[in-house]
């Protein structure tokens, strides 16, 4: 198990830029949802 972790350690890591992009996309979607939600229910 220890051997397997060592072998795959560089394959399973996520690049910081990728992580940042995913977080930025999530923030964007949540922000848009908060802004646009009232418009869906406007009379």
């Amino acid at each position: 198990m220890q051997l397997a972790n060592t072998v795959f350690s560089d394959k399973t890591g996520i690049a910081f830029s990728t992580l940042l992009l995913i977080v930025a996309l999530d923030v964007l979607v949540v922000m848009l949802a908060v802004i646009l939600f009232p418009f869906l229910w406007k009379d």
Partner: protein
Amino acid sequence: MRKSWWKILGVLLLVYTFIAGLLIEVPRNPQLEETIRNLFFHVCMWFGMMILFIVSFVRAIMYLRTSKPIHDIASRQYAGVGILFGLLGYLTGAIWMSYTWIDSNKSILNSFDTVAREPKLIGAAIALLVYAAYLVLRDSIQDIDKKARISAVYNIFAFAMLFPSIWIIPRLLDSLHPGGSEGNPALDPGSASANMRLVFYPAIAGWTLIGVWIATLKIRMKIIQEQKLSQ
């Protein structure tokens, strides 16, 4: 006639694009050869698509602010023409790819296996499918006001996803497509020759103007349809 100058300009620019684009002297790149001329069609159609989606997005915001049906109709029609341009861009890209990426020593299916994993293609397919879902969503709602409201909100989400799926994510990954992590060669004055830029920029304007013209015609047709229905 005075109001139609931009339509005439659009037609003239496209005539120029087709004639000059096919006849002009282009740089001799052994990998690309004559396929480099696809820049005037494929890339410019995608530019046109982006501009049409931007207009659709702005009209969606204007609808949410004012609730005027004209903005909803315009938003829908600009998105529709944007999708059409996207499909044409995909088609011209596929023709270009069949000469540059496909390995002639392998069977088509084996080469397709490599090409289908191309991040730019996947990103573009996601973006177009997101917009296709916009059309499906619209047609699935009967109530006119609800349809306009929900589709305007969805349009804004679709536009927000357009940039990451086409411009950001594919550039983070290794790609065969020009304009990957090394920047966009079409817009780099050091990459595209002066001759090509003479056709490239007018071609962007020409394709965009034709797209806007088609969209305005569709908007007018839709308004007439609505007026007939309300009579």
